[in-house]
């Protein structure tokens, strides 16, 4: 088993936008090399347009690198062997509003290869884990933003992944929902799962993560360990502000 859940090696991603007078190109990330250790919570910080979502999409196989190599548990992210071990929560996930949570989860469970009693068990476990059980009778249209985020996390947990990739998991949530999600993520990490999350909330990242990657204009500006920001005056916020200025 690879000691690293994820490794990026000299990765570059350039988006091509076709136009009437020829294509235009935008480089989202460049010369990007880092690892995400298995079993740790790693945070990803950066301003808008720094390349955070591009990194998330690269490691879930939704987009392909223009140069360099991305490996997830030793496999290319597009391979089934890698995807089977990754749970992904995109920012503001959408679920059909007429569905009940168990129905939405059953569909995604089937897509993850689950069937029969194993599927029913996985749906129950994910709902229980994310605190959706009391809301099982409601439809998605009746869900608050916090409950939708829990449902998003539940679908990411269905197939018992070793790595959770979470894009802005606490964005727009109220303090109680943030508290609950934070507790849930800490619990998942305590079971040995690696968590890779991006956020604009430095304080959340500071509370949860053991390591933080700081992205500036598509490049990795700094890798900061918990001991470093705990020792620094002003904490992680000061380190982040210095890095992005």
């Amino acid at each position: 088993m690879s000691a690293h859940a994820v490794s990026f090696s000299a990765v570059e991603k350039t988006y091509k936008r076709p136009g009437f007078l020829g294509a235009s190109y935008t480089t989202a990330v460049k010369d990007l090399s880092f690892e995400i250790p298995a079993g740790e919570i790693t945070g990803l910080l950066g301003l808008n347009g720094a390349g955070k979502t591009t990194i998330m999409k690269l490691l879930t196989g939704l987009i392909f690198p223009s140069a360099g190599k991305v490996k997830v548990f030793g496999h290319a992210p597009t391979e089934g062997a890698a995807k089977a071990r990754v749970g992904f929560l995109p920012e503001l996930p959408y679920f059909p509003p007429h569905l009940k949570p168990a129905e939405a989860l059953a569909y995604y469970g089937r897509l993850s290869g689950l069937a029969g009693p194993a599927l029913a068990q996985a749906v129950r476990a994910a709902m229980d884990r994310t605190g959706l059980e009391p809301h099982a009778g409601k439809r998605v249209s009746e869900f608050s933003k916090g409950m939708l985020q829990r449902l998003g996390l539940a679908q990411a947990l269905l197939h018992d992944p070793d790595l959770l990739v979470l894009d802005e998991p606490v964005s727009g949530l109220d303090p109680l929902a943030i508290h609950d999600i934070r507790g849930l993520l800490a619990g998942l990490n305590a079971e040995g799962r690696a968590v890779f999350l991006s956020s604009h909330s430095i304080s959340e990242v500071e509370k949860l993560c053991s390591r933080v990657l700081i992205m500036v204009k598509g490049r990795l500006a700094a890798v900061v360990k918990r001991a470093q920001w705990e020792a620094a005056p002003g904490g992680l916020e000061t380190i982040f502000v210095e890095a992005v200025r």
Partner: protein
Amino acid sequence: MKSVRVLLAVAGNSFYESVRHRFFLLFAVFAFTAIYASVLAGVMAVDQEARVLADFGLALMELTALAYALFTASSVLLREAETKTIYLVFSRPVPRWAYLGGKLAGALLTAALMLVVMGGMHLALLALRGFGAPACYGWAVLGSFLKLSVITSAAFFVSLFSTSAVSTMVISGVLWTAGHFVSEARFLADKAHGVSAAALKGAMLLIPNLQLFNARDAAGAACALPPAAFAAAAAWTLGACLAALWLLSRKEF
């Protein structure tokens, strides 16, 4: 085996979403109204009433199912990308061929259900007017379904490079229309010379001959669709699917 289960899950979800969608209900209401209008037209046809009722109803059924199938095929991938639903799908071990096959199967299953429901309405209206089921009715409906499978798979292919759902529907609609004039195009190509002949012959290779599936044009036992029609439908559908898969496998989300 796992991939086939995934395909069936996508197809089932696609079918369920379509059937419960209000748009589908609107189509059902539209179809019922339109078929009823055909009865009025039939009254005006005097001694040709049975034939007019049958032809008009079958044509409306095909057009209604076509409009539904084109709407679905042209918008489903765009909508799933816009809502980010596709992220939850392709971040899982879902082969792209299984996703595409499932979406196509779901759309065709819905179109088949529409044809069956509208066919039932149509036959009921004919019975109300005192006519039995027209000859070759089943073959005519089956022919419409074969056309739909060809055009829907082509629409999925077009939707993968087209910039909007509207342009996909327009291109696919043009393909459907042109597909009914392949014999005429062949006649023109034989008469033409030089570049225009080559252009016409080239275009004919890209346009499915939908007249092959028109069972209504034949009479008596000849209306049964020949095996060649099924083979042609399968070949065009498979070709469009493979082309769509080639694009989808390169597509980023």
